[in-house]
Structure formats: C-alpha cells, structure tokens
C-alpha cells in the first residue's frame, strides 16, 4: 500500500508525514504526528471532538482526507497556548469548570477560538450556535458558554 508524503504547517511548525490517501486528517494528526488532542467521537462529523483549524477555518478533521492538508496551516488544541501561557479560553475553562471528563474539550476550545477570532463580542445565542457542532454530554453546556463569555471579556481587555 503506497502512502503519500504530505507537507504542511501544524501549530506553527513545518511538518511532514506519510499517510495513505484515505486516511483522515484526524488519524494522521493522532497516529503520524502524535498529536492526540483531537479526538474521534463519531468519525462522521457529528460531534466536533476532532475539530481543528485549517487555514484559520474550523473543520472536523475526521471529514478531511490527509492529502488535502498539503500546504495548509493547521492549528490543534496543542497549539493555542503561547508557550506556557494558556490562551484565555483555556484559562477560563479551568476556572469556570467548563470540563468534566474533558474528551470534548479540545474540540470545544478550537471551535470557541474560531468564534472569538472572528466575533470578539458574541451574544449567548451566537456562542451556542457556534458551538452547536460540538457535542458535550457531561456539562449540559452551561459552564462552557459562561467560560467562553468570560474569555471574550478578557480578550477584549488585553492591551495590544
């Protein structure tokens, strides 16, 4: 079985890996690059646990074939902190108890980051619809939403 050589950027670093053409980007990230932050919850794009940013856009990596990643810029949960400084979303999620088992958390963080990157001042409804593609079974979403709201407040307060 022949595999394709794929070169792209992941979390700011140039990387390359081999994958058969029908491998999902999710499996490539997890198995070839050892980035197990993105999770498989369903494999069919219905749960969002595999969410990553591709060229700045939120995607389910389980629906992307690995060769599609050629030349693209991918961000996973492992890449949203700034060195040892957590992204405000990561910080508010911890303070706000927005995770219980934590399996959906990487995907939710990526989706929330995608939202706040584009809409720094979302309403509660906008947050809920932006996260509608991320299933959580533990929290009932309440503390997740509140943590995203708090992160938005903190991000707006950052002196640039």
């Amino acid at each position, binding site marked *: 079985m022949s595999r394709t050589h794929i070169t792209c950027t992941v979390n700011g670093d140039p990387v390359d890996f081999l994958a058969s053409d029908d491998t999902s980007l999710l499996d490539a990230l997890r198995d070839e690059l050892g980035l197990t932050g993105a999770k498989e919850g369903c494999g*069919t794009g219905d749960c969002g646990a595999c969410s990553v940013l591709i060229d700045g856009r939120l995607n389910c990596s389980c629906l992307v074939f690995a060769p599609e990643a050629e030349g693209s810029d991918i961000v996973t949960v492992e890449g949203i902190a700034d060195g040892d400084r957590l992204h405000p979303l990561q910080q508010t999620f911890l303070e706000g108890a927005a995770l*219980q*088992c934590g399996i959906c958390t990487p995907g939710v963080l990526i989706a929330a980051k995608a939202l706040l990157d584009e809409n720094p001042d979302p309403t509660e409804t906008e947050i809920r619809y932006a996260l509608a593609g991320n299933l959580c079974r533990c929290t009932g979403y309440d503390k997740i939403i509140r943590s995203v709201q708090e992160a938005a407040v903190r991000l707006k307060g950052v002196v640039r």
Partner: protein
Amino acid sequence: MTVTEDRPTYKWVGTRPIRHDGYEKVIGKARFAADLNLPGQLHAAYLRSPHGHARIISIDTSTAAGMPGVKAVVTGADFPDLDPTDPNFDVSVNVMARGMALYNGHALAAVAASTRAEAAAAVATIQVEYELLPVILTLDESMADDAPLVNEHNITRFVESDGPSNLATANVLERGDVDAAFAAADLVVEREFDTAFVHQGYIEPHGCVVDVGPNGKADIWASSQGHFMVRSLTAAILGWEPSKIKVTPAEIGGGFGGKTTIYLEPIAARLSQMSGRPVKLVMTREEVLRATGPAPASQSRVKIGASNDGELTAIECWFGYTVGCTNDLAGLIGAMSVASYKFPNLKLEAIGMLTNTPKTAAYRAPSAPQAAFAIESVIDEIAQALDMDPIDLRLKNAVVEGDPTAMGMPHPRIGFVECLEALRDSDHYRSPVPDGAARGIGSGFWFNIGEQSSATVNLNEDGTATVITGSPDIGGSRTSMALMAAEELGIDVYSITPVVADTESVGFTDVTEGSRATFSTGMAVVNACRELIEELRARAAKILGVEQDAVTWVDGTAVADGHDPLPLAAITAKAKSTGGPLTVTASLNAGGAGPSFAVHCCDLTVDEETGQVTILRYTATQDAGTAIHPSYVEGQMQGGTVQGIGWALNEEYVFDDEGSMENASFLDYRIPVASDLPMIDTIVIEVPNPAHPYGVRGVGETGIVPPMATIANAIARATSTRMTSLPMSPPKILAALDTP
C-alpha cells in the same frame, strides 16, 4: 447559589480550585484510552451479527487468518465457557457470542492485524452459517404466552421458576391496602406511559490497549469507570488469575454508568496473547450504539389516589422494563425507586423482560427515570385537578427522615423538603411564567451507594502530600479528594497531588458508580488522613519531647503548650529520624450513603403547529449534603439535567423489524446541542449526610431523574395535552395535539 444548613466553616471544602488534572485536559495532553500507542501494536476489528437472533451453525475464519497483516483471529471458541449459573456468564457471552447471536451487533469474532483496514478486510471474509430465529423486540412480544425464548440460558432471578424464560426479575412491594384507599379516595388518576431505549451517549467510545507478555502477564490500558472491575471480569472471562492482569485507568471520556461493565478487554487480551503483540481495540460510534448497553425501555401503569386537600393516599404501579438479551436488575430496582412520598398505601410491581436487543447497562440512577416520568406526571395531573400548586402538593406529601421507603426501611436524614422549599422561594419560581410559555415541576432522587474503597496518603519530604485512590475520575472527583485531604491535613489543596492509580498501586476499589466516589473513596481518604495525623502527632511529640496527648493538630501544624508550632513540613523533613516514611492506607466498605433528592422547574413553549419544544428557562435544585467542590456538584446537576432533557425530547433507539438499529449515529441519535438549551441554573442544597465526615451525598445520578416529567408537566400546562410516551419529539407532540 447554595442553601446550607448550619455546619462548620471549612477552609478548603466548599472552595473551587482549578482541578488538578485540568491543565493536561485543556492543552490536549491528557491521555484517554485511544491516545496510547504501543510499539508494534496491532489493531483489532469485530465481526458483528447482522441478525437480531440466530443460532450460529458455523464460523469459518480460515480465510481471515491468512489475510495480509492478520496476526490473530478469535471467536467464542477461544474463550472458556462459563457455567450458566456463574455470575459472569452473561457478560462473558455478551463480549463474544457462544453459538448464539442474541442481537444485531452481537460480537461473533474479532481479528487483530497490522492496520485497522487490514483487520476490517479480514473480518469481511469470515463466513458464518446462521439459523435465523424469531426476534423479540418489545415488552408485549417478550411477555406473550407463546413467546420464543430470547436467551435460552435466562433463568428468572430471586424467584422459583420452571426453567428458562424471558422474565429477568419480578418484584412486588406492598404496604397498607391500596384497594380500600382507592375506594375511599376523592380523586383517582390512572395513566399508562412508555419510554424508549436511550444511550448514555458518552462522547468517548470504549477503547483499550492490551499487551500480554510471554509470561502471561496482561497489561491493560482502558477507559472504564472501574479498573478493578475490568481486572476481575477480564480474569473471569478468560479464566486467568487476576494477579496476572494489571489495569491502568486511562482518563475516561464519559461513562454515566455505561462503562461499569466491559466489552473489549478480554478480546484484546486473547488476541494479544495469541499474536504476541499489543492489541489496540477501539469501538466506532456505530458499534457503541449497536452493541453497548442502553438504558431499558419501559411501559408503566400508574394509579394514584388523593384526598381533596392534597393528601396522596395510595399508589399502585406496574412497571415493565425491556432489559436486552440477558438478565438485568432494572425491574428490581425500578420498583424500589418509588420513595419520595409518604403513600401510606402502596403496591408496586415491576418486571424485567428480555429482548433481542443489546444487553442493557446502567445509565445514571438506573430504572428510576422511567418510573419517575410516570409517577411525577400523575402527581402533576392530580395537582392540576385539585387546582393545587405542584410544589405545595409535593410539600404536603414529601418524605422526611423516618418515613419509609418503598422497601419499608426508614429514610435517613434527607433534604427533599429543603429542595422543594428552595425552589418555591427561588427567583425562577417567583417570576411570572412568560407569555405563551408554561411551567412544569418534577422531582426525583437516587439512593446512592457506598461500597469498597481504598486510599493511600503519602507525605512527601517537603510537607506536600500525595493522595492515591482507585476511583476513576469521571466528574472532577480527584480534586474533591484533594480538598478533603487538604481540610484534614490543614495544608494547601495545591500541596496535594491526587492520583488515580492502577490495580497494582492502590487497594481494591469498587467501580465509580452509584455516585459513590466522593462519598466512599472520600471517606477512605479522610480516614487515611486522620490516621496519618495521629502518626504526625506522635512524630511531633518525639521532636518536641512531649507526650503525644499534649499535641493537637491545628491548621496543618502540631501544637503543644509551651512550644512553637511545628508545621507539617518540619515533621516530614524529620520522617526518617522519627520513625520512617509517613504513609497510611485506609480502606472500607462504606455504609450510610445518603440519598440525594432533586426538584426541577422548567419554562417552555410549544409550537403547536410543528410540535417543537423550546426550553426557555430551567432550574435544578439538588441536595448534595456538602458540596466539596461546588463547581463540580453544579456540573453533575447540569449534565444529568441535560441528559434528561434529551431523554425527554428526542433520544430513542429506532429498530427495524429485524432488530437492526436504524439510527446508530450521532446524526440520528439526537442528543442535545448547545443551541437547544438555555443556562441550567442550579441551587445546591446542603443537608449534610450524618454518615460522612463532611456530610457528603453522592450527586452524580439524581439529576437525570426529574427532567422528563418536568418537561411533560410543562407541556401539559402549555397545551392541555398530557404526553405519556417518550421521547416527546415534534411529530409525537403534533399527533397528540391533533388527537381529540
């Protein structure tokens, strides 16, 4: 918000520190079952029955065994056959069929190969000869006089029987004289209800990595609510000694009861043993839905009698649970879960019947949600008929300490009344129902359990502590352990490292279920700390040259008159010279678990042209005893509530006539999404449980019990139509509204 009885002021208990395992989880480093990869590992895939019920005449795996990349193939023939009376027989048959496919999705064979694709390709070549058998899918089919047997090995439990049948359990509880009471009642309401199979819906599929060495020692890495259970069940199913099996608990991505049993580990272990390689076995979402335990479906009849002034005098219930392809205790527990009201006259009958559907598993307060849906709905009808406020009606009849449960034992100290009052006085309940909306109330409770736990507390040389337990952390419990240890030892909660250790590194601990972790494992932690403090006092006495009796432990410091206080770190620094390492293990079989009651309130609208329900506002009150970490108590309440909302509105298994699940994906098995919901406001009630050093009551399960009736009651008040069938999906609501 929290409503608290008088209790001590705690320094750490009741605070909201960031959980100790939180950082790894938000940076993607936390390792769940599927995140481990071992060198040389194989991937495994299953052959699953496409038939709802069939005798397996033959399985030919010879082609599969020779396929590229294949290193091992197993069928039921590769596992010992346990005696049908063995308590683990049912699980052993469920993890790999023995001559009979009992449901569509039942595991028939498994292949381990170098890649998942190779394993799947090999599975596709396995030839099976089936003799198709009748498929039983409903309660009525299972109960019919001439019903074929779902499972030829099923013997009804706890009662005499003539031989195999489809009856799992039958339970009757009675007190007083219901017939006389109904005759004398001013008002009698009787209704029938039904609910569908629903799945726990954990986002992480089951997974494990198992490495069996040439010496027969198995190393298991698994997602589970109880790794000691994984060890013992794997040992039993394989016929191996438990001491040859080590289980390390991965972080677990949700369980809710569904991971209190096993599916994968014995299969992966056998494949690993046969191939000499580690085997990684992870379920797909489709497999999770087609082949792991849902909560039972149910039918029920509830009849309640009341006086005109709202005294609930009699209740008569019949509950029928369909429990899947093997015996299950749902029927037994279902009856017992009627215990919120005084009901001087009571007759509860509950049965469990087998069906050719996946073996059911626990799902938060197993069997109580189905019963509460029915009972709380009828109580609401009575409130409506009597024109009585639904909270007042419940207050008038609510059990208090000393009142009998359905089994007859008296309730210990409980907080049902406190929850009712808190909801009655809440901002939500006091605010007017919004225009066009309606409000529903519902309540529920769960017994909670104690069971066995062990804890080891090690004091490190610098005065910090490591608290080692064996309770997989499914909701933040390890930080609660640290909080209780911090309170006992008097040191900062961040000076404590809570660890969930493997089966070789901590004493036996029962499964994290029954809302027992913070209660029972917490007690073990507290006991270990208290014993440690005794030792610390002795060491301090040595250091200070005083009698041990002269030393007290205050705020992490040994205090003796006439001496400077000796902080913990000063004592640990001298551990070697004062007697050696400072470490204590405590274990117990905990009794005294305190029930946790909850009362919920929901405002919603019903679009009467489409049947769609929109939840506008939701408040959950629940008695936590003492909320060790309030954020995670609130989280349990909110999570259970939203699972109940899904159960109420949209979740159900859809089977075709042959028993194949038609909606085995998250697309069509519809759990709530963020945009479906408002904030879930919580009011934590704290009526301390006298049996726990900090008054803890388990809170993990109760939250799922009230929502279905809460929502049905609001819909009844919005539309004057009483929904008695779950889920209350838009087509069903519209059909009910259109029915005169």
